[in-house]
């Protein structure tokens, strides 16, 4: 499942994500390593995506408890001399990054995420619409790998839709790799228009 674009998560940052396995925190260490953990500190339940990344650890904003990439608690600032027990850890998930897209492995999948040889990531945006409605608005076609292909601003695009638990979708837009700056801006605007169409169709349907 596509969850984010690499360019949106620079080193030493953390972002929140909604996934089928619940709320998750995706973070990149100072050295550039990407990790994903449950978005909940086991100490008091605070969302870890509100926390901060120092070096190679993710810390909770509430009490500063910090966690390694494999989810183990490294440090409890209230007890600086204490070696945190191994039992204190956050659940982690497997992510991989290919072609500028971050993918979450759902269940124990053997398959590799799809690669797109002629397209590169542009931007991600939330649609208050389900993927099916987005496909209709795009007038595009769905591939076996879950991506959608179509045209925006007269250019070929690929949309990766991640359905959210609340019925909305996070849409990652891929533009032709050789698109100019002006063409990328045009695709960005056309995606906003596509969103208006998809959301209006939804509203019309709801009213009917």
């Amino acid at each position: 499942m596509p969850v984010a674009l690499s360019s949106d998560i620079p080193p030493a940052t953390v972002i929140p994500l909604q996934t089928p396995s619940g709320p998750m925190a995706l973070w990149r260490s100072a050295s550039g390593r990407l990790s994903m953990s449950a978005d909940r500190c086991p100490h008091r339940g605070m969302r870890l995506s509100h926390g901060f990344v120092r070096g190679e650890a993710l810390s909770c904003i509430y009490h500063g408890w910090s966690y390694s990439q494999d989810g183990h608690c490294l440090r409890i600032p209230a007890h600086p001399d204490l070696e945190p027990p191994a039992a204190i850890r956050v659940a982690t998930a497997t992510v991989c990054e290919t072609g500028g897209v971050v993918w979450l492995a759902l269940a124990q999948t053997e398959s590799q995420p799809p690669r797109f040889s002629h397209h590169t990531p542009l931007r991600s945006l939330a649609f208050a619409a389900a993927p099916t409605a987005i496909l209709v608005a795009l007038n595009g076609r769905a591939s076996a790998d879950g991506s959608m292909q179509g045209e925006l601003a007269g250019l070929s695009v690929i949309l990766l839709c991640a359905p959210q638990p609340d019925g909305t979708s996070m849409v990652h837009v891929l533009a032709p790799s050789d698109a100019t700056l002006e063409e990328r801006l045009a695709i960005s605007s056309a995606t906003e228009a596509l969103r208006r169409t998809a959301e209006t169709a939804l509203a019309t349907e709801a009213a009917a």
Partner: protein
Amino acid sequence: MKLYDYILSPSCYKVRLLAALLGIPLELRAVDFHPGGEHRKPELLALNPAGSIPILEDGELRLTESAAMLVYLASLTSPDWLGRDTAAEAARTEQWLSFAQRLTASLGGARLCEMLLRPGDLAALQAAGIAALRELEAALFAQRLHGEDFLVAGRPTIADIACFPYVALAPDGSVSLDPYPSIRLWLRAIRALPGFIEMPGIHRLHELKPEPVHGAEGEPA
């Protein structure tokens, strides 16, 4: 220079923030906005009949609009922050200063309803706030494509300061910032500016400070 201030007011915070970033000292006069409603009492109404805060006084000059205060502070010491290098840049800065009023009305209104129990149509305010955030996200994405981290240029201007507080505090009005990657990077860029100060609801970027080495404690902070 004297600022009639309220610690929880994002509009007052704009002025405090820019003054801190530019190194301009302010004398703060706390106004009992909540629960006292002092901004609607005779002493404050005499200064600003509109009954709003902040109010900035410098000698004979008295300002009651935060955008004007930002212009004044930047003009005094740091014209670079005015965002007026070209005709287009000046116009875009003005555009964002006006846009900031939409943020105040929508996200700010939702925040007052949710946090301080002020009356209002919460769902409508939140919807207007989300529409404004979407516009901001699109604009900031376009800026990123141009290689610029801020609203009108590669450097911060008063446009950024005018829009920053109500956006950063959108969750106070139960409007999520989760779906906006470009806004998230922009908020972070502003929070990382040298001299940045927080207000309640906006936490310190603790990652800017190195991990304390235990055993090195004991020195007075």
